[in-house]
């Protein structure tokens, strides 16, 4: 019944949506929503209660999804730009998140891994972390833009070495910050029932939306991605544009790393943000963006990130046994990626048009 009505309301905008790139992640999201509605409508319940500190919090699967997808959504922003400009992906983001988190903790802890009070303001730590991450981004960007190395090979260096660098920054110790105000950024601000990472992700999205609207970044990135030579002839410096996208990726990594360490006020170099680069790339692919660069849709990528988290949470909810979990995820991912492949979409568009045409013929007859 509920699924029925949803489908009907959806079919109104079907035609226009179909041509749009954002159709793929929206369709995937709809499938997941409908599946959960049929299986157990309580999935969409949100409850309001107090946490153990006595602060009000909202909880429920939807909140969990929005909360935990924050880092991925932020990374998807950077990954989309990098993909569009350089036609390749940055696979070092998981390792550089470890570096970013380690820098935050190092600045706040100084030499003492278990400080009673923080040695610097959180803002200072965050800014230092941004600078360091952008430097690492610049390193990747320089290899790709100026030395013309394949992005995946260039970022392989930090992918391999990043976690060791992160451990080295803190002398191999695992610092823990006991000051509760640090944890506000990864959990809840006192009195605000919505998890803080959701706000941070929103701020990032607003910033990138404004940047794409009011600067030429988006246009230039696409121009470089489609054809660097003709971009050059039109007065755009392709090397600079590629370089800049990797620096922006570094900034996204800094924010994501900051959220990661504030979630538990500590870090584990070997597992923090493990394999997140694959999810970020998947988000870009799910958004229907060509992984070979060129045109891109930022909104689709970000939505793709939320689809991935929606899927993960759904699988947790249905208690899929641990050994089978990756297999389920793989099947869904294959289906989604195949559907979003340009060739398949073109076929589907054709099919839809011929269906429409035969319908029109029937009506005419």
């Amino acid at each position, binding site marked *: 019944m509920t699924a029925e009505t949803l489908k009907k309301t959806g079919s109104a905008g079907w035609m226009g949506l179909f041509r749009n790139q954002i159709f793929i992640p929206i369709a995937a999201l709809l499938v997941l929503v409908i599946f959960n509605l049929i299986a157990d409508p309580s999935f969409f319940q949100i409850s309001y209660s107090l946490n*153990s500190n006595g602060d009000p919090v909202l*909880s429920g699967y939807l909140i969990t999804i929005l909360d935990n997808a924050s880092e991925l959504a932020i990374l998807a922003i950077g990954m989309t730009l990098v993909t569009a400009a350089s036609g390749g992906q940055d696979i070092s983001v998981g390792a550089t998140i470890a570096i970013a988190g380690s820098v935050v903790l190092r600045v706040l802890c100084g030499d003492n891994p278990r400080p009673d009070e923080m040695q610097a303001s959180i803002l200072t730590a965050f800014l230092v972390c941004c600078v360091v991450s952008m430097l690492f981004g610049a390193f990747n960007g320089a290899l790709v833009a100026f030395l013309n190395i394949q992005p995946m090979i260039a970022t392989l260096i930090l992918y391999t070495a990043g976690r060791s660098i992160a451990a080295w920054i803190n002398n191999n110790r695992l610092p823990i910050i006991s000051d509760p105000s640090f944890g506000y950024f990864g959990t809840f601000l006192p009195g605000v029932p919505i998890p803080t990472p959701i706000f941070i992700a929103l701020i990032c999205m607003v910033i990138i939306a404004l940047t794409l609207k009011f600067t030429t970044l988006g246009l230039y990135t696409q121009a470089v991605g489609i054809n660097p030579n003709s971009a050059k002839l039109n007065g755009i410096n392709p090397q600079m544009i590629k370089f800049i996208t990797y620096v922006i990726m570094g900034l996204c990594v800094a924010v994501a790393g900051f959220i990661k360490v504030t979630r*538990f006020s500590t870090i584990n*170099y070997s*597992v923090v943000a493990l394999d997140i680069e694959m999810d970020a790339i998947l988000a870009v692919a799910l958004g229907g963006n060509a992984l070979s660069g060129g045109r891109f849709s930022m909104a689709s990528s970000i939505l793709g990130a939320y689809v991935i988290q929606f899927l993960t949470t759904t699988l947790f909810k249905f208690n899929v046994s641990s050994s089978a979990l990756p297999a389920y995820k793989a099947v869904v991912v294959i289906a989604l990626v195949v559907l979003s492949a340009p060739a398949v979409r073109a076929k589907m568009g054709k099919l839809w048009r011929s269906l429409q045409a035969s319908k029109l013929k029937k009506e005419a007859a």
Partner: protein
Amino acid sequence: MKKVLLSLLVLILSATTVFAAGAAETAGTDDGGLIRVGIINNDPNESGYRTANDADLKRVFTEENGYDASYYYSLRNDEQISGARTFIQDGVDYLILSAAGTAGWDSVLMDAQNEGIPVILFDRTVDADPSLYVAEVVSDTNLQGQTAVDWLASQNLDEYNIIHIQGVMGSSAQIGRTGALNEMVANNDNWNLVTQQTAEWNAETAQQIVQSVIDAGTPFNVIYAENDDMARGAVAALDRANISHGVDGDVIIMGFDCNKWALEELLAGRWNYDGQANPFQADTIDSIIKNLEQGIEPESKTIYLVEQGFDATTITQEDVDKYGI
């Protein structure tokens, strides 16, 4: 210009490969009566356990203690094997080894035997004929799981509704710590698994798993996490939902590895149990070598480390200082 850049790149790349391969710290040649040991270990950055393990080895195998120790670190089996060959060629007196993987060690161990170099395995065992090594000093992960499950059984709850958060599937710690619990659940009607999923040693994934159970409204009263990080993630989810835990709480929290911060959680009564994974093998290896020097073979090939579990109601500050890693 291009040539300069290219050669610079080659330089950088070759430098990184050297770093990645892990430089073997070569030992001095004049031994002066010192016992030369070649120690092959996993990267100390791997985990808190490994860091403590490496520090313990460095504490024991010193010149004051009569040793001339060389270290080789890698998380990769093939690199470890070539490191072992280097040590054999250098003619160390003993080869001490924590293998990254179980397979592929036969031929190199045979080489060591032919050269008359005794091999002592620690922490992890390998798939090779036991005659190829003199002793293995290892953790009994099955016993770790059994100790924890026995402790849980001794709590005499009417009903056990357990959230079981597993480590990376297939790792020896996961297999040992899962085995005992699975058996108990299969044999007792009042033991139920609310959910059994892997968080791959990751706190955040553990939090999501527990959050999912809370959101579904399924009742539970035990969280059995196979390491401390995952227990911490689980507790964060409980705190968010205002569910009491620890001593006198509604939910029993169990972790493994005895990180110092985890034992402090026990001491504060926020967790109930933490099982030890003993990283301190160096003293045992030291006594084996000292005995071998006097011609005394170890009594048995496999030597299990003593590993205990800590209960929040009995743990003391001394325990935290002594066993916390």
